[in-house]
């Protein structure tokens, strides 16, 4: 899932604030946004489970309900940018009016 690139990893903790958790709609917004960072590999960790943030299906496997704490991890030239952008998404509850 996560490849080998620039080995410097940028990590930050995020919290799922959406009432219904990280379900299909927010997961798709997250994945779509993550895909924009072509020069970064982005993964999300929950406990021992690590998934690719660019894959909706993998994100759904996190079963990240409301209040779940997750580790957002990025590697590569755009790592910093990716983490900033995606962390902000979590804060804004993925811009979804639910």
């Amino acid at each position: 899932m996560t490849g080998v690139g620039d080995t410097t990893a940028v990590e930050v903790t995020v919290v799922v604030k959406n009432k219904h958790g990280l379900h299909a709609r927010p997961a798709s917004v997250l994945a779509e946004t993550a895909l924009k960072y072509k020069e970064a590999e982005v993964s999300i960790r929950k406990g021992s489970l690590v998934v690719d943030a660019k894959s909706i299906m993998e994100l759904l496997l996190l079963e990240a309900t409301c209040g779940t704490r997750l580790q957002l991890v990025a590697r590569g030239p755009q790592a910093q940018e990716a983490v900033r952008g995606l962390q902000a998404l979590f804060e804004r509850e993925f811009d979804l009016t639910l």
Partner: protein
Amino acid sequence: MRVYQGIPVSPGVAIGPASILRTEDSLPPRRTIPAAQIEAEIQRYRAATSAAQAELGHTTDQADLPHAVRSIAASHREFLNDPTLLGEIEETIRNGRTTAEWAVAVVFHKWIERFRALKDEFFRQRHVDLIDLRRRVLRRLYLPEPGEEPSEERPAILVTKDLTPSAVAELKRKGILGLASEYGGATSHSAIVAKSLGIPAVFGLGHAVSEIDPGARVVLDGEQGILVAHPDGATLHRYKELQGRLARRTRILHRISQLPAETPDGWPVTVMGNIEFPFEVVEAVSNGADGIGLYRTEFLYAGRTTPPAEEDHLEAYREALAHLRGRPLTIRTFDFGADKFAAELGMPAEANPFLGCRSIRYSFARPDLFRTQLRAILRASAEGRIDLLLPMISSVTELRRACALLDQVKQELHAERIPFNPELRTGVMMEIPAAAVGADLLAREVDFFSIGTNDLTQYTLAVDRTNERVAALFRPGNPAILRLLQQIVREGERHKISVSMCGEMAAETSYALLLLGLGIRQFSVAPALVPQVKRVARGVARRTAAAIAREALLLSTPEDVDAYLAEQTSRVLGEV
């Protein structure tokens, strides 16, 4: 060359490329592809997902659809964009050298199981989306490539897993040379509809269907129930010849079907059709039938869990009348039991169902069902030419009982001021030996006889023709049967009532000739056989047929009778 044996459903020979139609629920077999084909297979897969996305995009774009529907379609589109999913599928094709279908099926399966294992209900439910999505992508892969679908320009033999009756009926007739199916039997509703399309059909081929490559040359022999894939030269030649012969025969028969069935010496013969569903009247009429000599109404029960109401009966009878456009319709009351609808009706199992409470006996035991049917038949009689036929009558007592009930129902309708034909003609099936032997007694009290040769032969010879151990004894040409037939015809003539036959005996040309010779002038056969019987009537002078019948009656064994009839038939009618 591979030869597969299936169940014959509709006769004829078709030769052409196979067009494979798979339903999206059938999971594909694993098939390995050559290395050179990998890129093409990946392209196929990508094209299928693009097409699926376009389909979904179409849904999301429709403003008048409910929001929920559109957002589901939107999320499915995104699933299809998922790099992990796509990557895994492509990798499977590349490294596993499998077909796109199989890669899609196996990767989706893995994801479906993963989601099914999730603890949170909401997230677990996503597996349902994936099942739906898999179906959608497989459907795009399963569609014959443009140019592979049967069409007028490129006719093909359709090969499929299963055919629901509505699917068969909707098939564009142009370009489909034949039908081959994995499932299905000869008497299923799909089979009836396939037959009515008039093209060769073979069902029950089993897994053979999945071994046929799209576009492979295939021969379908509907008479024998055989499918040959990649026929060799000799086989192909043989089938092409057979096809030619059959085509000539069909042309001749079709021409004859439109002509009246009159013998060369001026004796008019009526040839009608036997049906189980009103829509079959269409085929009967287009084959030249002069009417319907037997409408097996027990099939009103097909696919039902509750008995048909009076209006259901009436609707069916009206539909049949509409297709008949003035031609007569003989409605036989319910002939339930033994092999027909016993389970649906909750009839108790009997030790000897053929000798048990079936048919008219069951109708007497269920006056609720019987009266409803009689009411509907009487009401329909006001709207067209209808005759009433009572099955399995074994004595005058039963006949009178049925007629008494009929009278009661007539009085009811009269009191309710509902119109019916008071002169409704009533007849009995001559199928029980007692009825045949006592034909003089019944002839006095009915308007017509209809000979049910199948059951008459079974009961008289004490043979169950579905029992392979004794089926060879089932010979309608048995001298005893000939004598019974002669008796029935004689008593009919003496009492000036019409005698028709509705069993399958006339399906055999030599027997049709014999029956004509015995004096039968009204035949009712399966719609597809109407032209054949007309051909016999038009081809044999009644005098000649009568002489042949007289000779046949002098013979002492079934084998002698059959041999004699075969010889005479080819002498008089020639080979077709």
